[in-house]
């Protein structure tokens, strides 16, 4: 348990450190994910503890967004002043992104399955 959690932290730390050192504007946790994947690939397996810790974190992923969401209380003035642009952009862009992504996925999948 503890070792698995430590491994996740170490990978994130390595990712953050590499981003700082290289001066690239790339998110540390994503690099951490790539490092984690590299570690697993080298080991050739994940291990039951790592699976359990990762699954617990990912199963409760929604909870982790709550503290940031409550921040809405601080942004109410800015949001109220720009509500139309914000709602329009979030709704329009999210629906459009869903449609484009699923359409391209299906189109390419069909194209390769029918040579």
């Amino acid at each position, binding site marked *: 348990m503890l070792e698995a959690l430590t491994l996740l932290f170490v990978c994130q730390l390595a990712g953050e450190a590499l981003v700082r050192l290289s001066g690239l504007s790339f998110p540390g946790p994503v690099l951490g994910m790539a490092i984690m994947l590299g570690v697993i690939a080298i080991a050739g397996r994940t291990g039951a503890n790592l699976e359990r810790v990762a699954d617990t974190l990912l199963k409760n992923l929604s909870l982790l967004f709550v503290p940031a969401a409550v921040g809405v209380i601080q942004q109410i003035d800015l949001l109220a002043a720009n509500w139309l*642009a914000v709602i329009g952009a979030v709704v329009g862009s999210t629906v459009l992104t869903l449609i484009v992504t699923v359409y391209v996925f299906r189109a390419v999948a069909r194209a390769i399955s029918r040579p």
Partner: protein
Amino acid sequence: MKGRELYQIWVYLAETPLLWLTATLIAYVIGERISRGFSRHPLANPVIIATALLVTLLAVTGTPYPDYFAGAQFIHFLLGPATVALAIPLWRNRTQVRRNLLPMVAALLAGSLTAVASAVAIAWMLGAPREILASLAPKSVTSPIAMALAEPLGGIPALTAVLVVLTGVLGAVVVTPLMNLMRIRDFAARGFAAGVASHGLGTARAFQVSEEAGTFAGIALGLNGAMTAIIFMFASLFL
């Protein structure tokens, strides 16, 4: 006398991180229970319920957000390790991933660009100032990544965090009816779209619908984090 004692207990507890950490967990547990009570109807989203409860509680007690966050930050912090943890389902499903590699790469490129460009274009047409545009641009990726991307472009990280959650909740609510309407029955494609458009909250929703959809959503969430970061890296060269 009684009231004064209660007030002293409140003052003491309000100063420790325990109070708001616990309040966040309780609010979420309530949100989860309600969501399950409505058999996971997309509109009964646990994040919406928990957030509404906590915002009301902060307003009633007159607690400033930084005081709340001092406790809740321990939950927020776990977003980083959770992002790293996405490597595990990615590895577990590597054969499926390899089989769908080409559709995924194409859909990721198209979806990622659409998410950033359409959000900025729509908000710009509706007259939003630059700080809003920069805060909106990374809205489809998970919050630690989005916040890190918005800041150098002149965005407000705290606003980005809120917009990210708004996008996630909306995606989670809309994805199932939209995909049914489009008559898409490929759960890999449906899940992947949910992950690209609405990150972790879309992924959480996808896992409720099917294991396959959830897996592909998780992969999309990780890949879109990386892809959006790359788009921003190139964009920052021209801005």
